């Protein structure tokens, strides 16, 4: 397993390199954002540990660049910034996990193990519907290349509809596939979710077929991305 560590503090870097080495990882170290970005882009790492406050290019920008360049390596953000607004920004940029300083080395190792295991999951082909694209492996969706922010229920709804695109799907069918058996459901739930998903992917991609249900379609003149 090969890990990239992007961290500017020399003492912390030394400690982490030692701890990661002991845990059986091969570690490359970059001390600034520019070098980190270059290494992450060119070398096939299994995971990246990324600090946010970096010289030259900050961590969030590095992450955004990788994701735009389709570098899908799982990234764990390690930072002193513990505000929720910063965590949200980190996950929006494409992070897979987030750990705040000060931290226990054992916790970092545990998170890293989970991250690597998760990304090694079975690959399945991604789904496309016009400019809308869904990657079941990473549980991510994009519209015209822009990443979508979806909760798991919204993601499940979109996933199911894209698996059955072009067909009218009834409300009951959606409820059955959206929820576990023991999830309490109320009748207007589906409208709420459809409304929310429409807001995120654009209002015209999901059509309401009166009395029957919903149908997802590509926009007119759009070809699959």
């Amino acid at each position: 397993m090969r890990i990239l560590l992007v961290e500017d503090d020399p003492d912390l870097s030394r400690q982490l390199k030692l701890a990661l080495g002991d845990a059986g990882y091969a570690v490359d170290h970059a001390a600034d954002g520019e070098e980190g970005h270059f290494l992450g882009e060119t070398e096939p790492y299994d995971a990246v540990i990324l600090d946010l406050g970096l010289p030259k290019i900050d961590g969030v920008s590095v992450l955004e660049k990788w994701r735009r360049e389709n570098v899908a390596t799982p990234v764990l953000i390690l930072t002193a910034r513990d505000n929720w607004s910063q965590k949200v920004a980190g996950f929006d940029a494409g992070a897979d996990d987030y750990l705040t300083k000060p931290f226990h080395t054992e916790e970092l190792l545990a998170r890293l193990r989970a991250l690597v295991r998760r990304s090694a999951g079975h690959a399945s082909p991604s789904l496309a519907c016009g400019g809308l694209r869904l990657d079941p492996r990473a549980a991510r969706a994009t519209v015209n290349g822009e990443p979508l922010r979806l909760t798991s229920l919204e993601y499940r709804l979109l996933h199911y509809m894209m698996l059955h695109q072009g067909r009218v799907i009834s409300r009951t069918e959606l409820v059955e596939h959206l929820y576990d058996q023991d999830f309490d459901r109320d009748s207007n739930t589906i409208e709420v979710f459809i409304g929310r998903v429409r807001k995120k992917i654009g209002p015209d991609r999901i059509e309401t077929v009166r009395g029957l249900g919903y149908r997802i379609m590509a926009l007119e003149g759009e070809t699959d991305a």
Partner: protein
Amino acid sequence: MTPRARKPWFGLGRSSLVLRLVLLAGVWSVAMLVLAGFGLNQLFTRAAVERFEAGLGESILGLQAETTVEDGQVYAPPMTDVRAYRPFSGFYWQIASLDDKGVATPLVRSRSLWDSRLTPPPKVAARARANPGVSVYFDTTDPLNKPLHAAAQLGVIPGRTEPVLFMAAENREAIDAATRRFTYIIAGALIVLGAGLILAVWLQVRIGLQPLFRLRREVARVRKGKAERLVGDYPAELSPLAGELNALVAYNQDVVERQRTHVGNLAHALKTPISVMLTEARQQPGVLADIVVRQSEAMRGHVEHHLRRARAAARAQTIGERTDVAEVVDELAVTMERIFQDKGVTIDWRAPDELCFRGERQDLQELLGNVLENAGIWCKRKVRVTAEPIDGDWLTLTVEDDGPGLPAERRGEVLQRGARLDESAPGSGLGLAIVDELARAYGGDLVLEGSAMGGLKVAVRLPRAET
């Protein structure tokens, strides 16, 4: 406590600008109108009396021209005014001799006087004697006690050496009535005019001050979080004030933002060295290492405590901020599901569109983030978030989970700073205490209950920005 107001001037020192302007204009107008009323009344009365006196003078001239003396006996001419023949008719004349003491003894008198007489007061008699040929006027009464206005004039008759006093008198009730009627009419007219003037001034002031009232309403909207800045078009006198207010709001937001940045930088600067020291010391045996671990932990506690204090201080000053609740709930739900991905946590959320929190976005994120993290840690699989308006000013955020919950008697402990009910569970241990502190800073509160889903239900009440 508000400072005691300076004793207001006539009770309107600070009460109302409108009242003040209207009253000042009103007092001036009323004074002028009263003065005008008196003046007009005076002029009218003078004119009426002069016309009346001219009539009396003519009667005296008539008497003087035709009166004759025969054998020392004075004969008066027949009067054209028939009223002189009817007793106590209200028109009288008299020709009298005047002795040195000013006592008038009638020589001839009109039939209307019957056996009474016209008696000039001594002063009038003296003046008449001093100015022969000039009429002197005075007021007296007739035998029926009606008010009379009379004229007296000293003159000579051919054939008599002693001068005689000619007098004519007439009932003055007619002019009194006319004057009174005029007074009533003029008073009525002036009162109507005065009321009209005050109404006009009031309207003028209300309309003139309209932009000021609009400014006040807009400032209130900014403070309540309904608007971010003043946008109205104001007259030349007020637009600099609106500009200054906008600059103040912007400055306020800027200060808060700068403070947050400083706080964040400080956190970053301190936390990495603390982390390094902790890790290094934990790996070393010995007393020194133990001391470093203990002291570093204490430093970490201090840093977090004071950073939170600084954030709370910055927070209390912000005005005009509003944050869309659904947006924040959505982004945090997505983030939280990623954080708890291995556990497979599902977050189900409901928030009406257009529901806005009156405060900083970062604070709402911090607040809900901590509650959600706590729920994520303790839940089995499911977390439910509900945002609802309570009324126009408040909203409630409820987070429930299906975890083991928290016994009622231990709920108070969670809200104490740094309390951690289970040391083995991850998290800073400050979560709900921070939320409680934040909610209080906004005048809201936090309530812990049992949830129908099995776990804990955290309800946070927060100020709502009106839409």
